[in-house]
């Protein structure tokens, strides 16, 4: 029986030159998590820990990246501590690849924000922290890297630590720890370092082990219909439970129409008499009676979701080509796909400077964040992101390409 623990997904963000790749290499190396024959391609197995090692190429296996020295895309890499397994979703920092970075961040449950102790907070640092905050990351650990370049100075560390603390507070991020490290030298990653003897906090590995797996609280049912198949002349609704659970015989609402229906049978291949299905399960459902059903409808046990063709949202524009209010887009949230337009751009915000750039704008530029009102061609079903994240986040597409990601804020 496979008893492999689920790996806790984490993302490492921060400015492109602040040492993320080196940190990742160091994490893999210090936990003996590099598969041995990868070494042959990238580096040899070693018994001694080297003083000055760069692992930038552990993660970068694409030729282009080597020539440009930046990580283009996301990669999943696993490492382990005695406590559990982790999977790093490496998020690059270059401005041009913001959309890839968003993709990386979106699956992680905790984040490490890396800041160069010598350089301090840069624009990219701010932008990434803002996005972490928007995506709802509660578990963030800050690493002040290259502490060797500031001669392991306690004063310099404390100064920057305070700056970082205040800056993150504005974003409503409360970091679990702010740690001094040197990825290239190996200080305080897996082992404490005598050079930082004045620091009595944890190592990076110890800090990671304090992260908690996201608890799955009992939420109300959200089952978006993904498709309809015909089996033996009957319609079977297939989809994935995005929140809550569903029981055989239960009475549920079919939204957006608000029709009441009964769950006749829950279907799973080769399983008989399934009485309940839970969060994250992909299943089939037979409803009692005949109903007009289609992809995009949602089964729920309550009527609290917002059902509307006008929704307020916070969006971050990823596409380098900006947007002009009124242009046609496609709204995609779970299995809902509805044409829409951004009708009003209430406020635009530059996360790099943390400043408001415009109220009541007529356009949005690449890498900008905005508060908007979206007008859709049909009613959609959404929940606030902070309550049911799967129903509170969406993608906007233009001509088949994702151009923006968005969040439904709490009402009010």
């Amino acid at each position, binding site marked *: 029986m496979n008893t492999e623990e689920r790996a806790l997904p984490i993302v490492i963000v921060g400015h492109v030159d602040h040492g993320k790749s080196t940190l990742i290499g160091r994490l893999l190396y210090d936990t003996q998590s590099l598969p041995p*024959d990868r070494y042959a391609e990238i580096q040899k197995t070693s018994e001694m820990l080297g003083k*000055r090692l760069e692992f930038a*190429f552990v993660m970068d296996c694409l030729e282009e990246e080597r020539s440009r020295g930046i990580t283009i895309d996301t990669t999943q890499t696993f490492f382990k501590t005695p406590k559990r397994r982790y999977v790093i979703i490496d998020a690059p920092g270059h401005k041009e690849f913001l959309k890839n970075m968003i993709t990386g961040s979106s699956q992680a449950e905790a984040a490490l924000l890396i800041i160069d102790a010598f350089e301090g907070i840069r624009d990219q640092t701010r932008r990434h922290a803002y996005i972490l905050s928007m995506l709802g990351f509660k578990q963030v650990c800050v690493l002040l890297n290259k502490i060797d370049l500031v001669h392991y100075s306690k004063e310099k560390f404390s100064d920057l630590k305070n700056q970082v603390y205040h800056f993150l507070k504005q974003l409503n991020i409360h970091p679990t720890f702010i740690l001094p490290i040197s990825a290239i030298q190996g200080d305080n990653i897996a082992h404490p370092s005598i050079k930082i003897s004045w620091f009595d906090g944890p190592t990076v590995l110890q800090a990671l082990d304090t992260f908690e797996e996201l608890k799955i609280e009992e939420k109300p049912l959200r089952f978006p219909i993904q498709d309809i198949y015909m089996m033996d002349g009957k319609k079977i609704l297939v989809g994935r439970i995005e929140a809550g659970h569903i029981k055989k015989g239960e009475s549920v609402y079919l939204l957006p129409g608000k029709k009441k229906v009964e769950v006749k049978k829950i279907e799973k291949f080769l399983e008989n008499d399934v009485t309940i299905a839970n969060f994250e399960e992909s299943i089939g459902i037979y409803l009692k009676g005949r109903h007009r059903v289609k992809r995009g409808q949602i089964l729920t046990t309550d009527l609290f979701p917002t059902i509307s063709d006008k929704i307020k949202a916070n969006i971050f524009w990823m596409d380098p080509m900006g947007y002009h209010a009124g242009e046609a887009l496609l709204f995609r949230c779970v299995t809902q796909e509805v044409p829409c337009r951004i009708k009003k751009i209430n406020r635009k915000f530059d996360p790099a400077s943390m400043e408001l750039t415009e109220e009541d704008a007529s356009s949005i530029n690449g890498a900008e964040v905005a508060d908007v009102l979206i007008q859709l061609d049909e009613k959609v079903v959404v929940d606030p992101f902070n309550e049911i994240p799967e129903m509170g986040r969406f993608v906007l597409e233009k001509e088949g390409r994702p151009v923006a990601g968005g969040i439904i804020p709490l009402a009010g």
Partner: protein
Amino acid sequence: MKLFSKKIKKALIIGIDGVPYSLLNTYIKNDIMPNLKKILSQGFTLHQMNASIPDISSVSWTSFNTGVNPGEHGIYGFTDLKPSSYSLYFPNSKDIQTPTFWEILGKTNQKASTLSQKYYHKIGRPYRSIIFNVPHTYPALPMNGILVSGFVAIDLRKATFPESAYPYLHSINYLIDVEAEKAKDDKVAFMKNLFECFEIRKKAISHFFEEDSWDLFFACITETDRLHHFFYDASKDEKNPYYESFIRFYVELDKFIKILYDGFAKISQENGFFMILSDHGFAPIKQEVYINHFLKEKGLLVLKEEGEFYEKIGDQTKAFNLDPCRIYIHDKGAYPRGKVRREERTEVLREIQQVLQTLKGENGEEVIDKIYKKEEIYHGPHTGSAPDLVCLPKDGYDLKGTLEKKEIFGQNIFTGMHTWHDAFCILPSKIHLLEKQPIEHQIDYVLQYFAQ
């Protein structure tokens, strides 16, 4: 007219693969190389130098290029085994764990080493280099300048950075290497091919030297190594049918060195840095020595019937050898069939050293000159993957890593073998060397020059 009082910094490095100090000294004294003699009289000194251990081109040039020992750069030979397996692979430029000096000068290094850390803040601005035909730089990795890889390289496109340098090389039918396979069948044709290759090499070097801009120019002549492998017996023997060709090669080499040196003197206006070096020496072969067969006879190596190359290693094996003489203990845990436990290692090492010392060649002379344990000669993060023992032979006995042979000694078509102790370097006389240097120390003088 110069408006700025800034000093121009220019460096020229000429590498000549496999040229021994002793031979060069003889040729200079005997006026076979009058131009080099003249250069030496103008403020340069010829020194004998130690190659890397082992003394193979891929290791030695890498030690020179990175300025560190194999314990840091991680290259121990042309071949190596993948970790935890018996699979052979061929380390290439991507496997070098530390930056080369042109990456340090050009400020494009992604990796770090003791050398790069030393010069990190001292190199004021990026310097542009042309690195031509230097062995073990394939595939060509992006850098600040132009790089054309030396052997072993299969694809000229992949051996060239940037792509824009390729069309010229293609147009002159540039050859990365002579076809050594030909030497077996037709020595005369091979010698001809050698000279042809050398002509194209000189043409290409001159082209980039004159047409392109650079702060540092490093070109290697590799034909000498090929010449020596097959014709070293002709180097001092006037009666040998290839003696004239051998000498002629050195005469042409001498002329080419003058061309580059004079061109350099003009460009650098007497302020440049000039050096010439080789990566190892050569000596006439008496016999090849098949170390693995020797280990077999002593019961230390046990081979299976099936398997390719090192897949043949049986579980009763205590140690095995890779080219030329890199001995690895068949550790439990390190190799799939390894059975030597930690506690047994010391004893096994001692046993191997002991039997090696009993190895006697013709007339009962000793074959092995030096035996080193890895910790004695390697320092750095990759010492773990180093061979447990490395042997250097007495001149004349070419140690081999083949598993195929059924005797300890044998002959082959080669007449020359590498030596460790007899490489050379020519440096400005103002650099005083107190003792014989290893090759990895030489690049420091170049970096110092750019750091002033």
